[in-house]
C-alpha cells in the first residue's frame, strides 16, 4: 500500500499496526462537565519513525487535544495510543508549545540542562549534552544569556533544544512558530525537520497555515470539528485535495497571483463542538452538501494512502 520509504500517517490499518511505530486507534475524547463537548471523534493515525506529519485545521477543531492525548497529558475517553518502539531509556514524547516553555530565571544552558538535572545526570555530562544541542539549534555563544535577552525566534530554538535533549521518540509541536515572522518560521521548521530526520524522531507539527509546511512535511492530516477529514501524502493532499474543506483551505491562501480577485472563501464559521450538527460537520458550509450528508461519512480511500471522509469526495469543481 505504502511506497517504500514513505513514512507517516495512513488512515486505516492495512499493513498491520506492527509496521508503524505510533498507532492512534479510534481515539475519541469527550469533556463532560456542565456541558458535553465532543472534542474528538474516532481518530485513526499511524506514524513512522523519522517522519514529519503536519496536522492542519481551524482553531477549536481538536488538534491540540489530540496531541495532548498522544503525548499523555490527557487520557482518551475511548480508543488507544500504542507505541511500538522497543522500550528504552528515552522518553516517549516531548512537546514544543506556542508559548516557549523556558524558565525566565535560568540561562539558556541551565534551561536546556534542566531536564537531565531532574533525571540525576551528572553535571559534567548534562552540560556537555546541553551544549551539543544548543549548538545544533544554532545558539552557540548564547549559553549564558537569559531568555529575556533573546528574540522570540531564539527563545523558540531554546525550547526545541530542550525537547531534543533527551532524544524522545516523538516530538509534538503545537503551533510553535505561529507567533514568529514568516522568515524565522521557515528557518526553524527546516532545522527541526532536519534534526528529526537525523535522529529518527517522529515529528508532528500543528499549524493552521498549510503554506508554511507544504515544502517540508511528508504527510498532512486535515482536521475539522474533531475529525480527521482528509489525510495523505503532502503532494496528494495539496495537489489533489478531495475534501471540500481542504479545497477551500488551499484556495483561500492569498498569493501574488490572486491580487485583484476576491479570495475563495468558505462561508460561515466552524461549528461549535458543544453542538455538532448531525452527520457531516462541514455540511452547513459545504457547496456540495446534499441529503446524503445527514449521515456521518466514513473514511474512504480515494488514492493509495489518501483517505477522505466525505460523501462527495472529488477534485475542485465549479459550483
Amino acid at each position, binding site marked *: 500500500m505504502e511506497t517504500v520509504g514513505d513514512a507517516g500517517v495512513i488512515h486505516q490499518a492495512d499493513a498491520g499496526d506492527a509496521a508503524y511505530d505510533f498507532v492512534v486507534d479510534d481515539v475519541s475524547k469527550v469533556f463532560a462537565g456542565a456541558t458535553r463537548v465532543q472534542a474528538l471523534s474516532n481518530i485513526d493515525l499511524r506514524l513512522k519513525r523519522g517522519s514529519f506529519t503536519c496536522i492542519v485545521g*481551524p482553531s477549536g477543531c481538536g488538534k491540540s487535544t489530540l496531541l495532548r492525548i498522544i503525548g499523555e497529558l490527557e487520557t482518551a475517553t475511548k480508543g488507544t495510543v500504542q507505541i511500538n518502539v522497543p522500550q528504552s531509556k528515552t522518553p516517549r514524547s516531548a512537546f514544543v508549545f506556542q508559548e516557549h516553555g523556558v524558565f525566565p530565571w535560568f540561562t539558556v544552558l541551565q534551561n536546556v540542562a534542566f531536564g537531565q538535572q531532574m533525571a540525576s545526570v551528572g553535571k559534567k555530562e548534562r552540560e556537555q549534552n546541553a551544549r551539543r544541542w544548543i549548538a545544533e539549534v544554532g545558539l552557540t555563544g548564547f549559553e549564558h544569556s537569559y531568555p529575556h535577552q533573546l528574540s522570540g525566534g531564539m527563545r523558540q530554538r531554546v525550547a526545541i533544544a530542550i525537547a531534543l535533549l533527551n532524544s524522545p521518540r516523538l516530538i509534538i509541536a503545537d503551533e510553535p512558530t505561529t507567533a514568529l515572522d514568516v522568515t524565522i*518560521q521557515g528557518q526553524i521548521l*527546516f532545522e527541526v525537520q532536519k534534526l528529526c530526520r537525523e535522529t529518527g524522531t517522529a515529528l508532528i507539527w500543528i499549524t493552521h497555515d498549510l*503554506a508554511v509546511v507544504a515544502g517540508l512535511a511528508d504527510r498532512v492530516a486535515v482536521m475539522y470539528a474533531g475529525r480527521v477529514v482528509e489525510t495523505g501524502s503532502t503532494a496528494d493532499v495539496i495537489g489533489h485535495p478531495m475534501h471540500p474543506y481542504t479545497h477551500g483551505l488551499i484556495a483561500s491562501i*492569498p*498569493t501574488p497571483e490572486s491580487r485583484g480577485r*476576491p*479570495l475563495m*472563501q468558505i462561508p460561515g464559521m466552524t461549528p461549535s463542538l458543544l453542538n455538532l450538527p448531525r452527520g457531516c460537520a462541514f455540511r452547513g458550509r459545504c457547496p456540495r452538501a446534499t441529503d446524503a450528508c445527514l449521515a456521518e461519512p466514513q473514511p474512504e480511500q480515494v488514492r493509495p494512502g489518501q483517505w477522505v471522509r466525505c460523501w462527495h469526495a472529488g477534485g475542485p469543481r465549479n459550483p
Partner: protein
Amino acid sequence: MSAERTSDMPILALSGIELRFVQPLDLAARIANLLGAGLRTQVVHAVAGVDLEVRPGEVLGIVGESGCGKSTLGRVVSGILPPTAGELRYRGVSVAEMHGPERRAYELGVQMIFQDPQASLNPRMRVRDIVGEAPVAHRLVSRREQADYVAALMRQVGLDPAFAQRYPHQFSGGQRQRIGIARALALKPSVIVCDEAVAALDVSIQAQVLNLFARLREELNLTYLFISHNLGVVSHVSDRVAIMYLGRIVELATTDDVFLRANHPYTQALLKELPTLATGRRAYQPIQGELPSPLDPPSGCAFHPRCPHAMPRCKAERPLLRQIAPGHMSACHLNDMGA
C-alpha cells in the same frame, strides 16, 4: 474641499519622519553613574527617517520583520504617537500645525485596525457602544439615530445587527475583527491603517476578512496602509509595497515590481522565504542571523552584516533610497556599480 480639486495630491505625505524612544536612567543607574559606571540613556530609533507618499484610493503594503518599526510607523501615521522629527502632512496640510476642526478632520479621517481584536475591544462594552460611541461623541449622528447607524455598519461588515447587545467575548475571532472594522468605519475615515489585521486569524477566516477589506475599499473609496509581516497577504491586497528594515524603507515599488523584479538584497531574501504551496523538497537558504537590535544598529547599510553582497562601502556609508526605475525606489550601493 481642496482635496477633491487635486486628486493627484497624496492623501498622506511623510517626510523625514523619525521616532526615537528614549529610556531615561533610573535612580539606581544615576547613583551608579556618580560612582563612575558611565551608563548612558538608551535610545531606540524605531523609525529612522521615512519619506513616503500615500495616494488617495491606493493600498500601500508595509512589510518587514518584527522590530523593524512598521507598527510604530503606523501609529505615527494615525496620530497615536507624535513623531520626534519630520513632518506628516494630511491632504497637503502639516498635521503638527493643524488646529480645531482641521485637526479633528484628520483625527477622524485616519483610523486604525489592530492585530488582536480581543485586546483592542473593551470587554465591558456592548458592540452597540463600541461601534456607536465615537460617532455620537463626534456628532456624526445623533443619539436617536445611533441604533440604526450601528445596525447599518454591522450589516456592512457582515455581522447580524441582532448581536448589537452582545459583548466581545461572545464572538469568534473573525467576528471580533469585523467589530474592530465597524468601529473604524463608524467615523467615516478616508484612510485605514491595518496593523497585522489578519495575522491572528485562521486561513479560511483570514480570506473572509481580506475579501471584506476589498469590498469596503470599492464601496467607500478607502485608502489602506496595510502593515504585515506576511508577504502572501501583502502581495494579495497591495498596489504598492514598502519594505522596511531597522526603521528605514529599503525598497518601495509597485507590487509587481517588488515581487517580480526585487532590487534590494533584503527583499530578494524575504521573497525566497515566501511560503508557497509548492510541495517539492525545499532547501532553505535562510537569511543569516536575525534582525539586529535597534538599540545598536550596524554602521552604514543596516543590512550589511546579513547581506550576501556586502562590500567595504556598505559598512561605511548608508545608501539612500533612490529611484532605479520609474516608480521603483531602492536603497542599495549595488545599484551604483552597474551604472
